[in-house]
């Protein structure tokens, strides 16, 4: 190919690599953002391929490697991969539901120089937490919160907020305090993958969101810097979209269990894009000139109202995946934006939540639901 013809201006430095080591998980949370067709990701990259990807990421300038899934601790090579990332100078973060974190594994992760652990809880009390997870795991998670801190790791507690648990937000803050945790992420559910499938059951009410905002504001004032609370309003309750991934192809790379390289963890849902695989191309090539990364990088692709908007390099058009899921076109303004001509799509499911049972996340049954 002609070098000039394919030269791409201003390819930024990626900061963060999300390694989705497996989509297997023993929990069945209905808000999981993993794709519905989990069974198509069974051909997982081996440890050697992951090590190569981590090395290529460091060469590209990536600063952080996040190990997630599914449940990443189901891969026995996890400590070896953390060690590889740390040796390449990357900051290493384990995103886990915590049920397999025994002292032996924690010891291996400590030796591998893991920097940080994030553990999720489904709710601040056992009955509801186990109901959401679809299995009895809450007690083991509480045990893991202690073990991780005793092993000397920095720990963030994460709780995904949905209509099922939003009213318990004060108790989640209490749980973080009880366990002496310094950072809490109260993550309003985002509607991708299984969460999109289950949005009718998960969408919080406006009253819940406003109550949560007030509770968090009071807690921040009361607790100061002893507990740092991240609480971001859900975009469908705001008039401006979230600057998803800080812009498509600007800072983030996701590699799926089978080696597909995505500009966003939810991007595989965009059936109009073709995603390169690390089995076939280097991470650097894919980042710089892979079709999916180039498609919506920068502002060239934007239609109105984004193209002429003062916020085009603040919001970056919002979220491509959300635009696709709602309209069938990933190249339009995110309907979460009040200026989008299709804002009615967001308003409809925000303002008229339909009560419907949630479908638990499963490897097998996705195609039949």
């Amino acid at each position: 190919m002609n070098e000039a013809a394919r030269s791409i201006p201003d390819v930024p430095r990626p900061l963060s690599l999300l390694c989705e080591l497996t989509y297997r998980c023993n929990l069945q949370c209905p808000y999981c953002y993993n794709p519905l067709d989990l069974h198509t990701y069974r051909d997982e990259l081996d440890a050697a391929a992951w090590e190569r990807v981590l090395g290529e990421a460091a060469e590209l300038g990536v600063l952080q490697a996040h190990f997630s899934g599914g449940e990443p601790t189901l891969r026995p090579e996890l400590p070896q991969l953390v060690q590889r990332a740390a040796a390449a100078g990357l900051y290493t973060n384990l995103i886990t539901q915590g049920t397999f974190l025994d002292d032996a594994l924690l010891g291996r992760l400590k030796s591998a120089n893991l920097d940080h652990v994030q553990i999720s809880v489904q709710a601040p009390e056992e009955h509801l937490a186990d109901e959401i997870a679809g299995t009895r795991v809450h007690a083991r998670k509480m045990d893991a919160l202690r073990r991780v801190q005793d092993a000397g790791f920095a720990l963030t507690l994460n709780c995904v907020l949905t209509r099922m648990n939003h009213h318990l937000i004060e108790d989640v803050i209490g749980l973080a305090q009880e366990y002496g945790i310094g950072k809490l992420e109260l993550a309003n559910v985002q509607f991708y993958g299984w969460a999109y499938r289950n949005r009718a059951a998960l969408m919080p009410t406006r009253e819940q969101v406003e109550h949560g905002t007030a509770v968090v504001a009071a807690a921040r004032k009361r607790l100061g810097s002893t507990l740092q609370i991240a609480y971001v309003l859900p975009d469908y309750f705001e008039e401006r979209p979230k600057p998803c991934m800080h812009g498509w192809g600007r800072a983030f790379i996701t590699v799926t269990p089978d080696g597909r390289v995505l500009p966003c963890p939810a991007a595989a849902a965009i059936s109009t894009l073709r995603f390169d695989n690390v089995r076939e191309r280097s991470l650097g090539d894919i980042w710089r000139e892979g079709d999916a990364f180039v498609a919506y990088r920068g502002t060239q692709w934007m239609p109105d109202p984004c193209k002429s908007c003062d916020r085009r390099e603040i919001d970056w058009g919002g979220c491509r995946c959300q635009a696709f899921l709602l309209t069938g076109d990933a190249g339009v303004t995110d309907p979460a934006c009040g200026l989008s001509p299709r804002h009615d799509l967001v308003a409809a499911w925000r303002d008229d939540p339909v009560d419907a049972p949630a479908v638990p996340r499963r490897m097998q049954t996705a195609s039949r639901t």
Partner: protein
Amino acid sequence: MNHAGAPAFERGVRLRREPDGSAMLLVPEGVVMLNGSAAAALALVDGERTIDQIAAEIARANFDAPSERIAEDVRVLFDRLHERRLVRL
């Protein structure tokens, strides 16, 4: 604020220096970019030097700036980093 103690990075906070001399703090949520004077001060954080010792070392290397001013800047820097839970004092 007590400035007599020796600052250390909080768990989960790591200083990274780049080949071009720039520096940053890596934290779980991302990156905190450092200006030149903050990078110089944080390069001296080892859990043993006190804030006053760090300020004194920087002052020795900077003949142009008054040492009182440097000491004040370094104290403000560590107060801010402590408030953000990036260092403990």
